[in-house]
């Protein structure tokens, strides 16, 4: 019982503080992970907007006109281009969340998880969601 008073200094691992976030460099899998969260919260917050779109697009032919004009003439004080921008943000969030989710389920089911695979699938997730968002964005704004 000699070493009870003299304890060795142990390493302390604390949570990352908000102010330190920028200085941490995340690997691709980490970027996918945090964006999975961000996109989920975005869709949660914009859920009433999505249901409003669902509502006006389905209720009647007249309300359907309001639905399509929302992206041209705008809604209230919000211009049409802004509505399109919000829609595009939702499109990205959906695509990223979808693909990142498929990646998750695939990893859960196959158990084939390695550092290299995780890296490649993370890059594929980021790339695929970006390319699809770009394509749908071009369609939304220019065609």
């Amino acid at each position, binding site marked *: 019982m000699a070493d009870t008073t003299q304890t060795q200094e142990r390493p302390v691992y604390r949570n990352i503080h908000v102010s330190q976030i920028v200085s941490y460099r995340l690997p691709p899998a980490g970027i996918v992970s945090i964006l999975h969260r961000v996109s*989920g919260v975005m869709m949660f917050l914009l859920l*009433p907007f999505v*249901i409003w779109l669902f*509502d006006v697009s389905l209720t009647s032919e007249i309300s359907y006109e309001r639905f399509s004009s929302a992206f041209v003439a705008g809604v209230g004080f919000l211009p049409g281009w802004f509505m399109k921008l919000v829609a595009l943000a939702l499109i990205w969030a959906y695509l990223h969340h979808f693909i990142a989710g498929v990646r998750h*389920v695939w990893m859960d089911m196959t158990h084939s998880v390695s550092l290299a695979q995780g890296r490649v699938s993370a890059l594929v997730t980021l790339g695929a969601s970006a390319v699809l968002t770009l394509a749908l964005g071009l369609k939304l704004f220019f065609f």
Partner: protein
Amino acid sequence: MQENFGSKRLVVGAHYGLRDWLAQRVTAVLMALFTLVLLAQVMFGAKLGYERWSAIFSSQWMRVLTFVVIVALLYHAWVGMRDVWMDYVKPVAVKLALQVFTLAWLVGCAGWAVQVLWRL
């Protein structure tokens, strides 16, 4: 019945961790399949306008499927948002308030969506 005393006593959680983990995946797969089903109906057929769009949600099977997906979304988003609050919000009172807000928000949204679906 499972032994729950002595050395076999359960000392952690109520096992909702595994249940929620599984539920989040099952509901995700359901919503993904719904996306594909809806996308197939939107992409193939005549020019998309009010007629065809409302016809998609007028069929009884699509209405039931959409209802199931609304409930799945409710549960899925609840598990996800609860995770977010648990990870980032420490004070118990604030966490509880945010969780109550999340539930009210989601149940409200689900109710609205169901109303839209069934007055068609």
